[in-house]
């Protein structure tokens, strides 16, 4: 199958992992605040099937310093990826740790993870903090992308200011070869995120934005009314990747909403697969 990639999922409700690691209940319920039932891996895969996709990027969050919790650690992501080849695991490290670059190198070279997830609001750091630069240098050296949570954060205790797109500009400018994804269209700052992507070709945006109404209405609002769809199609078609934010929303529903926006067939292929492949270095 070469169908497509969901670039933004969280493996929080995978029943097999909770059975192996009962401590994963706490981050799901008390740090990520997801209330749904735990489901077998098969449900995750069927969700991908229903959405017409074949692979999913799994994102952990190292919130040890700020929440005394790991929303999956890197070893657990690697363990889950070993159980199912349709998963592509990312790492997460705390950029404020002095040994963050070494931890990332281990996660990529030893555990086989494929990218870095950072969540400034939950990890309580600003992306342009120079303390984080050694980590970005390491990501660049390793040839991996960084996906940043951007825009609003739901979790209680999180502050919106960490997700302001302009806090990512220095990173994009200082590391022009580093592939950066700003998640959730950085809503409510979609226009600012689009401006960054227009200016910096190494800045990508993922579609995992849903903060009210439903996927169809919200994405139409964000990707048609806030910024015209033509801007995404004509100017940013190589920098938009499909992401669902599963399990906060079903993959099938986000995929249907993105497909319903009115992108050309060529653009849909880029959004659902080609751009993600480029971010991952050419292979899924």
């Amino acid at each position, binding site marked *: 199958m070469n169908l497509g990639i969901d670039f933004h999922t969280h493996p929080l409700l995978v029943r097999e992992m909770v059975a192996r690691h009962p401590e994963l209940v706490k981050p799901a319920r008390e740090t*990520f605040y*997801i*209330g749904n039932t735990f489901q077998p891996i098969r*449900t995750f895969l069927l969700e991908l099937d229903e959405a017409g996709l074949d692979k999913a990027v799994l994102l952990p969050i190292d919130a040890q310093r700020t929440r005394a919790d790991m929303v999956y650690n890197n070893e657990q992501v690697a363990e889950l990826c070993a159980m199912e080849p349709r998963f592509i695991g990312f790492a997460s490290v705390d950029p404020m740790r002095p040994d963050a670059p070494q931890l990332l190198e281990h996660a990529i070279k030893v555990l086989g993870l494929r990218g870095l997830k950072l969540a400034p609001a939950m990890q309580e750091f600003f992306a342009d903090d120079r303390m984080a630069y050694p980590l970005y240098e390491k990501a660049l050296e390793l040839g991996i992308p960084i996906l940043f949570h951007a825009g609003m954060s739901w979790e209680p205790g999180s502050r919106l200011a960490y997700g302001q797109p302009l806090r990512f500009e220095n990173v994009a400018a200082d590391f022009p070869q580093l592939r950066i994804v700003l998640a959730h269209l950085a809503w409510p700052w979609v226009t600012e995120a689009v401006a960054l992507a227009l200016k910096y070709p190494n800045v990508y945006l993922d579609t995992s934005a849903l903060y*009210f*109404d439903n996927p*169809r209405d919200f994405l139409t609002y964000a990707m048609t009314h806030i910024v015209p769809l033509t801007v995404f199609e004509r100017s940013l078609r190589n920098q938009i990747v499909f992401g669902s934010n599963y399990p906060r929303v*079903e993959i099938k529903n986000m995929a249907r909403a993105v497909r319903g926006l009115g992108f050309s067939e060529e653009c849909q292929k880029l959004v659902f697969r080609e751009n993600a492949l480029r971010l991952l270095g050419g292979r899924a």
Partner: protein
Amino acid sequence: MIIKMERIEVQSTKDMEMIDITSHLERVVKESGLHNGIVLAMTTHTSSGLIVTEGIECLERDVVAHLDRLAPKEAPPGAPGYWHNRYLDFDGRLGFNAGDHLKSILGGINCFFAVENGKVVRGGRQTVYFVEYDGPLARTVIIQVMGEGA
């Protein structure tokens, strides 16, 4: 007096589908030792249902399609739409599947049959379906028997 309950897991594989669970009811009755009484079944989820109808594929399609016409997943563009289109802080996610909840209400969530001489009494064309309105998901159905043993 026998009262026994079993939880079965039903894995739906699609957004909406009907899954025949008749054999589960018959098995639970047989294993319970119930001779005369009743067997009841209920889905524990509010976006799925239980329906009894003739067990043929064309009807499965019609039932699901009809319920989707009555309670579509998305209100037509421009219509006022469902109230259930908002963030649910207790769930950490958006709730926007009012149509699926409404289908569950319209189609019902339970069924029961008489049990006579250890057999489920049902019409020759009656099939018991678990109905998924918002899958794929692993779902739980409870089956309980009550009555006299042999």
